[in-house]
């Protein structure tokens, strides 16, 4: 790399770049200048800028291909009315540690029982917090470094480990993948990067906290996790956003690479602002998450989704290597006017590959959700197996739940099973639980929690407690 940031800067000017380069916030709108501005702000290597520009130009060709097949409806998003980059006020003295974060924000986290507090960090979770677009704090870095584990913000990884990033970025989700993935590739701001060396078992949970702070700001994180042969990592991701009257756009990309014999467990607690009772405000959450599983490796996605006005998300596994395993455990809750179209894709390519999908959907208020899942067995995938179970729980009369499974089997040895159910909290159950002295609302939460147990038990213990809390907060008033 011979290009220095200065060169990029001058190039930008040559291109007619007129934005104040010292600004903390990019002007609204999207064009090549903005892409350059972001790349420049982050002092990225030239190849990164090139990649972004290719993605941007590709995205332009997709202009009329914003996905419309999902069972969600929303007003047209004006992509020129979004701010694509916002750094903390003064980049130099932006928060360096969690202690410096606005106490209001910390309070909001605490309310949700989110483990950003010191005592929880002591409990052994390494945390990386991404506020708006910049990663502000990564704890436990040194402990991890001793074992050769890299856990840092994506920007830092680009500076310190450019070869690793270059090798794996886009290898699972190419910038051409879909409308939102292309957009992300062009303008992604920050995110987390984790690398677990060969044979290393990561000794603690790695965690990233994402939060959209600034009004009108889109958040486009990119996360890349690479688990070398025989390694193991459990990664947690939490998301919140403050109450805003206007919709906010979130289009993230997550790529997981599990090399031979590696295992990645990826857990998400998503609580983006869902909008108010009438559907004003709330985050539009369009996310592409995918993992590539090599020989004898395993990738598990576990997610508890209670937030966002609209969720469009299908964490997937490409079972490329023989004997690889893919799992998807999900609880998705929609209340008020929330809409979710979510599910997974399991692409079986290797022999003896196995996948398990357990999806629990809870609909309340006027919420509407669709499970959309694809199980594809390629011709070479001898003895592939899939088990899918989709359960929906309806609370009230005005909500909806739909299940759309796509099954494509191109190998006769495959075994694919699909089970689905839709239920309500039965009067008998409620009477039974209340007869033991438990008040109506608590009884309903208990039954709802029971419905989610198969998923919650997949979460690390602390996260499971938070998930329960989150569910309760999200359902307040809906089960009265």
């Amino acid at each position, binding site marked *: 790399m011979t290009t220095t940031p200065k060169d990029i800067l001058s190039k930008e000017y040559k291109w007619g770049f007129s934005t104040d380069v010292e600004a903390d916030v990019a002007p609204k709108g999207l064009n090549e200048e903005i892409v350059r501005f972001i790349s420049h702000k982050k002092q990225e290597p030239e190849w990164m800028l090139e990649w972004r520009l290719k993605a941007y130009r590709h995205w332009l060709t997709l202009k009329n291909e914003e996905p419309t097949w999902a069972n969600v409806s929303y007003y047209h998003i004006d992509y020129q009315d979004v701010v694509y980059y916002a750094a903390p006020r003064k980049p130099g003295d932006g928060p360096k540690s969690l202690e410096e974060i606005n106490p209001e924000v910390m309070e909001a986290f605490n309310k949700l029982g989110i483990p950003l507090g010191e005592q929880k960090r002591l409990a052994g979770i390494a945390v990386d917090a991404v506020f708006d677009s910049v990663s502000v704090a990564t704890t436990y870095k040194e402990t991890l470094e001793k074992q050769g584990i890299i856990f840092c913000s994506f920007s830092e990884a680009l500076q310190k480990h450019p070869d690793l990033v270059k090798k794996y970025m886009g290898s699972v989700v190419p910038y051409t993948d879909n409308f939102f993935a292309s957009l992300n590739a062009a303008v992604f701001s920050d995110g987390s990067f984790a690398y677990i060396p060969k044979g290393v078992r990561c000794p603690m949970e790695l965690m990233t906290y994402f939060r959209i702070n600034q009004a009108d700001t889109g958040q486009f994180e990119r996360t890349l996790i690479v688990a070398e042969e025989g390694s193991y990592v459990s990664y947690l991701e939490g998301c919140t956003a403050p109450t805003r009257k206007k919709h906010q756009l979130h289009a993230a990309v997550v790529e997981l690479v599990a090399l031979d014999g590696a295992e990645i467990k990826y857990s998400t607690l998503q609580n983006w602002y869902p909008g108010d009772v009438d559907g004003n405000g709330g985050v539009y959450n369009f996310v592409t998450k995918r993992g590539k599983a090599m020989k004898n490796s395993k990738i598990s996605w576990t997610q508890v989704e209670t937030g966002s006005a609209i969720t469009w998300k299908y964490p997937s596994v490409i079972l490329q290597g023989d004997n690889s395993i893919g799992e998807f455990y999900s609880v998705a809750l929609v209340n008020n006017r929330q809409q979710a179209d979510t599910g997974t894709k399991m692409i079986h390519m290797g022999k003896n590959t196995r996948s398990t999908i357990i999806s629990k959907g809870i609909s309340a208020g006027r919420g509407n959700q669709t499970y959309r899942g694809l199980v594809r067995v390629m011709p070479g995938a001898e003895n592939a197996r899939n088990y899918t179970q989709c359960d929906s729980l309806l609370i009230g009369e005005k909500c909806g739940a739909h299940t759309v499974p796509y099954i494509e089997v191109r190998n006769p040895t495959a075994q694919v099973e699909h089970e689905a159910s839709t239920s309500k909290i039965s009067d008998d159950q409620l*009477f*039974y639980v209340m*007869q*033991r*002295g438990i*008040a*109506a609302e*608590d009884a309903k939460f208990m*039954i709802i929690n*029971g419905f989610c147990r198969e998923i919650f038990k997949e979460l690390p213990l602390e996260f499971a407690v938070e998930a329960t809390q989150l569910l309760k907060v999200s359902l307040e008033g809906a089960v009265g």
Partner: protein
Amino acid sequence: MSNTIPILEVRDLHATVAGKEILKGISLTVRAGEVHAIMGPNGSGKSTFTHIVAGNPAFTVTSGQVLYKGKDLLTMSVDVRAKEGVFLGFQYPVEVPGVRTAQFLRTALNAIRTYRGQPEIEFKAFTQFLKEKSALVEMNQAMINRSVNEGFSGGEKKRNEILQMAILEPALTLLDEPDSGLDIDSLKIVANGVTQLRKPDNAIVLVTHYQRLLNYITPDFVHVLIDGRIVKSGRRELALELEAKGYEGFKKLTAAPA
């Protein structure tokens, strides 16, 4: 007759479900320390009666009174009745998937204790308490760690009801056919459990079809319920008479107003 306030006093209770009258004037007084057995043919309204006392909203009380320790039970919500000390052992215990029995019972006990102004029971103390009580009905740890009644056999479900009674220590227990579907050993376990829980300050209303259970749990009174009315009440011997003669002889009594 004692002059203390009865635990349960039912006066001329009428109730309907889906517009159909099921209970047609039931009166019953149950005092502390007593066990009352209610017997009657299928569909006569035995379960309905127990569910109404416990507050199941599926049934509508059209007239009459139900007093518990002198308080009007009919105005209380289901959980408040339970917190006051009313327990129903279900004929068909309900499954609560994903909710572990131990967790379920601790939540219930703590809700009741909080209502009574007592401190919540600590996890450790509860675990010990639960262990002792489960020994009473010979329920093992593995079952307690499973979801409430999920995949339990009929007999296991019935034993789980008695375990819950033992944990929650109610003042009034309604047991709806605790013996149905039990093998001979389970029957003894259940009966023995109930007998041990029988105290001078609590009362039990026992619904059963078989006098066999009453060999183990000796009732103070036996009532015959036919077509929504108690057509005859008596002592222990009434159950033996029923067993010998069946309900035929009693059915003609239904025509007479209660």
